[in-house]
């Protein structure tokens, strides 16, 4: 029992670090470096020692261990980065305190064994993040965005609290272990449990910036780059994490799963399309996150919690890297220019692009069959080959001076990446413990399959014939983000406006980021 508390020590380290940083202003970075390093070391030791989290059923600590280690790692990388990046900025102390507080709260969400505590920690992390997002409080856009996030978060928390209350009303407990036990012994969910599940799913959806309340995630570029990295890699995915933690419950509530699949798949596809049109690097990355979070929630809804866990961790690492190196955008553009070929010699490749999908599907299906029957691994979900092929088929889209060689090379690549995918799938599976029965309607799988084949086909049309009538007609809508965020922004302005300064002050205040004060006293 007592070992479980070890995991809370990390949060304690971050909180103590925040206090220490507050005392050492204007040089808070030593505290940040020490706290994030200590946090990482502790997480790594605990993971290696596989400290049993006794309140959980055996096997369940897997996601907790992995995600806690992830938070420790990201905290350490982002802390180091920020310490150098923010040199000379006013308000570094404020930043350091908020960073460490947020990290402590996120860690608490991850290690909580109790739904109430989990929600409370989540609220705290949201407030910590709010301070980071408003680091440049004199930038009106920063305030508007933070305010939108504030509203979306409170709405999400209301859903979560309501869900928790219903759960407590049903089973008289908020312990995640007990909830799992109760849920697993359920034959079919009653109305109260169903409502609870739907509310909890809704909370996760709102916290994960799904359409149409995604605007705050897209516009947080008003905060320093490492804050974007932290948000996109370490915070926005908590929705998925909580769904994984609540898997035994969610798995029993088809309505909640349907909600997750619909919201997730639509966001994955639509936000992905919007991403294709973005003209600035950070905003592109933000839409990408939005879409990836949709994909992760969709996986949760389909009962593929192992894939969702893999996605959560891998996406965090990928996105943290992408944000922290956003300054390389120019180098990357130069790199692409070096590789560019004459547009005239470029073939349309329609046949190749069409045929590569069934080919990749065949490879994925064959591999899955091979793993299952020759290596006797757990079965691969039937939707997986569809998702694999919609992704890997793009490797055949470009041609070059020796096309056959290129196709062969990339066919091997497809084969290799498929095996890699299946390997990670098994690894994640092994972390997750006993396999939950997948009781998702076949219809949802079909819907998802159609969504991604449709996305593949549509992006093919857009890339092959950008001048086509379809591409032209869609472009304004997609470039405008389907005009979803404007509605929400307008609504927030009307119902509960952000406290902006008056126009006169505002005009001059956009200049104040440029007046250089020394470090706050």
């Amino acid at each position, binding site marked *: 029992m007592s070992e479980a508390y070890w995991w809370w020590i990390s949060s304690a380290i971050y909180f103590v670090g925040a206090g220490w940083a507050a005392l050492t202003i204007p040089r808070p970075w030593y505290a940040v470096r020490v706290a994030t390093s200590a946090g990482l070391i502790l997480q790594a030791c605990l993971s290696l020692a596989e400290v049993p989290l006794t309140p959980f059923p055996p096997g369940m600590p897997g996601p907790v261990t992995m995600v806690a280690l992830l938070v420790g790692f990201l905290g350490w990388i982002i802390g180091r980065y920020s310490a150098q990046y923010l040199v000379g900025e006013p308000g570094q102390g404020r930043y350091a305190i908020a960073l460490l507080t947020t990290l402590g709260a996120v860690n608490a969400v991850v290690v909580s064994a109790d739904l109430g505590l989990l929600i409370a920690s989540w609220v705290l992390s949201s407030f910590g993040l709010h301070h980071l997002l408003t680091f440049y409080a004199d930038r009106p856009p920063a305030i508007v965005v933070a305010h939108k996030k504030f509203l979306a978060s409170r709405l999400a928390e209301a859903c979560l609290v309501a869900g928790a209350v219903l759960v407590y009303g049903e089973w008289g407990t908020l312990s995640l272990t007990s909830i799992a036990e109760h849920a697993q012994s359920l034959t079919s969910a009653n109305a109260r449990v169903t409502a609870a599940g739907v509310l909890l799913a809704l909370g996760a959806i709102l916290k994960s910036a799904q359409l149409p309340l995604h605007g705050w995630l897209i516009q947080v570029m008003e905060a320093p780059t490492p804050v974007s990295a932290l948000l996109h890699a370490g915070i926005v995915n908590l929705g998925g994490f909580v769904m994984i933690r609540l898997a035994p419950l969610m798995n029993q509530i088809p309505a909640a799963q349907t909600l997750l699949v619909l919201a997730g798949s639509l966001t994955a596809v639509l936000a992905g399309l919007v991403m294709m049109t973005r003209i600035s690097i950070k905003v592109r990355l933000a839409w990408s996150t939005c879409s990836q979070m949709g994909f992760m929630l969709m996986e949760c809804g389909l009962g593929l919690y192992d894939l969702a866990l893999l996605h959560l961790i891998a996406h965090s690492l*990928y996105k943290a890297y992408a944000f922290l190196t956003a300054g390389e955008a120019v180098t990357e553009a130069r790199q692409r220019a070096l590789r560019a070929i004459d547009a005239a010699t470029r073939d349309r490749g329609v046949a190749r692009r069409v045929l590569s999908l069934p080919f990749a599907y065949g490879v994925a299906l064959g591999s899955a069959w091979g793993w299952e029957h020759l290596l006797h691994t757990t079965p691969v979900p039937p939707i997986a080959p569809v998702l694999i092929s919609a992704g890997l088929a793009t490797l055949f889209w470009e041609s070059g001076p020796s096309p056959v060689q290129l196709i062969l090379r990339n066919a091997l690549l497809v084969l290799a990446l498929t095996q890699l995918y299946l390997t990670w799938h098994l690894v994640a599976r092994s972390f997750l413990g006993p396999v939950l029965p997948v009781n998702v309607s076949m219809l949802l799988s079909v819907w998802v399959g159609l969504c991604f084949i449709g996305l593949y086909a549509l992006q093919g049309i857009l890339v092959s014939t950008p001048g086509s009538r379809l591409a032209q007609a869609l472009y*304004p809508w997609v470039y405008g983000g389907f005009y979803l965020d404007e509605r929400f922004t307008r609504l927030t302005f009307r119902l509960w406006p952000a406290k902006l300064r008056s126009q006169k002050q505002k005009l001059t205040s956009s200049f104040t980021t440029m007046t250089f004060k020394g470090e706050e006293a």
Partner: protein
Amino acid sequence: MNAIAQRSEDRVAAEIDAACRSIAPNWPLDRQIAMSPYWGRVSEPFKRALLRLNRQTGAAAAMPASYYAKAWESGTIQARHLSRAVQESGLSFSPDACVDALGSTSSDDTSLPLLSDCADAERDLRHEPAWREAITQQVSQHCAAYFDEDQADWHLRPRAGLYASWREALCHDHSIALLMHAPGVRLGARELPLDATQCIRWALNVLSIPPESLKELLQVVLLRINGWAAWCAYLRWEAELAGAADDHIVELLAIRLAWECLLDDGRRDGSSRWGNWRRQWSSRITKEVGAHLPITLLWQRAHEIAYQDHLFSQLTRESAKAPSSVGVTSPARAHVVFCIDVRSERFRRALEVVDSEIDTYGFAGFFGLPIQYTPIGTRASRPQLPGLLAPTLHVTDTTGSKDLDRRLRGRRLKQLSANRSLQPFQRLPSAAFMLVESLGLAYVGKLLRASFRRQAPNVESEGLGGRGVEQLRPDLVLPDSTTVAQRVDLATSILRAMSLTSGFARLLALVGHGSLSANNPHAAGLDCGACGGQTGAINARVLARIFNDPFVRQGLSQRGIVIPDTTVAIAALHNTTMDEVQVFDVADIPATHREDLERLRQSLRSAGTRTRAERATSLGLDAQRNDHSALRRSIARRARDWAQTRPEWGLVDNAAFIVAPRERTRGMDLQGRSFLHDYRWQDDTDGRVLDLIMTAPMIVAHWINMQYYASTVAPCYFGSGNKILHNVVGGRIGVFEGNSGDLRIGLPKQSVHDGWRWMHTPLRLSVVIAAPRVMIERVLQAHSPVRELLDHEWLYLYRWEGAGIERYLRGQWQPWAESSSPQSVAAA
């Protein structure tokens, strides 16, 4: 009647053109070179132009009063400098009055309003977004979609021009109408004329702009979208260099002006939006620009005088000590030619100290080669020359053997296309999920590697392989018939321009420069501006090859320039972040010169150590000043650090441009603030070299100087803002500060400010030339724009006269006496 209408039509056309020409171009990030943002306004005197800009935009003309107050307290600006500045402006008050006036400056916003500002004044901005930002946002996003080629995977395919596509988009827009709750905008857009110029005329009519306000209004409107206007000005600049035309900027003007009409409710009574705007506009425009000079501009001049006093006493006191027998002491063993860049000054000084047998030269870092470079096997051409010029020659890589070239090219094409075939997988949405789930975990390694980076990746050599890189040399692509003749022509003119036509040393090293930084969108701005924001490596290597060509040497000797067989030209690159010099193509250097090379390299290393020690304080590495290896390690770490926003200080603190033989300045500590161009007027019989220097390098130095000036005094307007918020647009077009807003131009604040103080001292350039009056005057007569630049005090021109210095001012030469105490000035 018709004639009158015609005249007003012409006048409008002229004013549209004038407004568009008042915007200076801003180069894209991958070829960023410095440009004065005031360049379109040099036909007005410096002070008046900056005050006009202040009235049009609110951008400051000089530093805030507190800045000068601090310089006063620290003794940098003294009473004598102030009295001189007062005297120059033809005023008569005491330095004490200047100090008092500094304490009571007011900063009322008197910038000229637009109709849309009055629309904002009517809005409840607590409950509604402001039009000012919303318009900027809408125009900026449309421009980005229109001009982007390198970021998005799915582009706007405009069937029409910038204006027409904007109009079309607005007719079907749901975004701004929804956000601003202004459904009328969509309807209004349908009423707009179809053509940009028509739209401008129509809008001027609708808003009934009186002719006397026309000029100001068009400029104010265009400045509201200054960043994209500067981008359009760049497109026009490039088009005109290539002999074509580009009117995007006119369309941008039409777009921004159309917005004013879209917000016009059509009412014209006194209390209407239009009436309010007209009232405010007239009350502010009636005041003559520059009628009241802000006291800070006087202090600015005093600050410049203080610097000039110091510089000139240095130049006259110490040059008197210099040996009169110019350059004939002992023949140097190596001639090392650097770029005129201010960063070279430190390094040259150090190099001359560690090895007295080395002579250094200063010359524009593109070494006079008007080239465009295309790496072998690619289509990625880029200019390698100053922005003033259009490339006339083409350079690509070659091994010298056509067969080998073909093989290398083929291999590279294959490798590049293999890498290209991964791009859809890395970028398309359906693939992104798979990318994450199959390869995402590998990003642990990438994050660790980036955090502890050992070496910056070299993008340039992708697909070549180590052997290929070793075998390839950049070389001119010339038709066989002209190849030698053209090379000889080039070599002759370049050597003459370098003032290096005899007395060749055993080594002639051509040292270009480049910087090293990671994760830095503005990296090209730290490279060689004379090479179009690239490193000078290609130019140096091409020129060394030309100089070593025996046929070229033969041709040169026929023209009286004899390069002895014992002279070998080598190419090198000065890494300005690390202060290390890399020598290229060492394998080509004959064995006879290996020893000379080794000795030169040794000296270059020692010079680097000295230079780094000198820079340590400004890099915040004072503690390691005396520990050479620790300092080198720290600087190297800094150069590779992905979170470092200040890898080096670039051309910070530049203030002077000295055109003279090196003997005039050798041994002087010019603190890395001077561009140094070698010039020997005695050899320049027809004055062509001086003509070139005053019309090209001097102008480029002025651009750099003004870019730093503007980014320091008006950072929110002419600087690109905070690097911490930078968000690259279109892969290379520029940056947004944060999420969106206008495109930002100029230098980031981290390039001129270290977080505690300004690293750049904004001073106008002081040019000092060692040449007779008549030669200088001849250049000024031939080039009225240069004369105008001087007459309008955008920079200062001085020359040595005997043991003293004299200033050129509007056709007169005035001797410079060191500023004396105010009493004696008053007495005089």
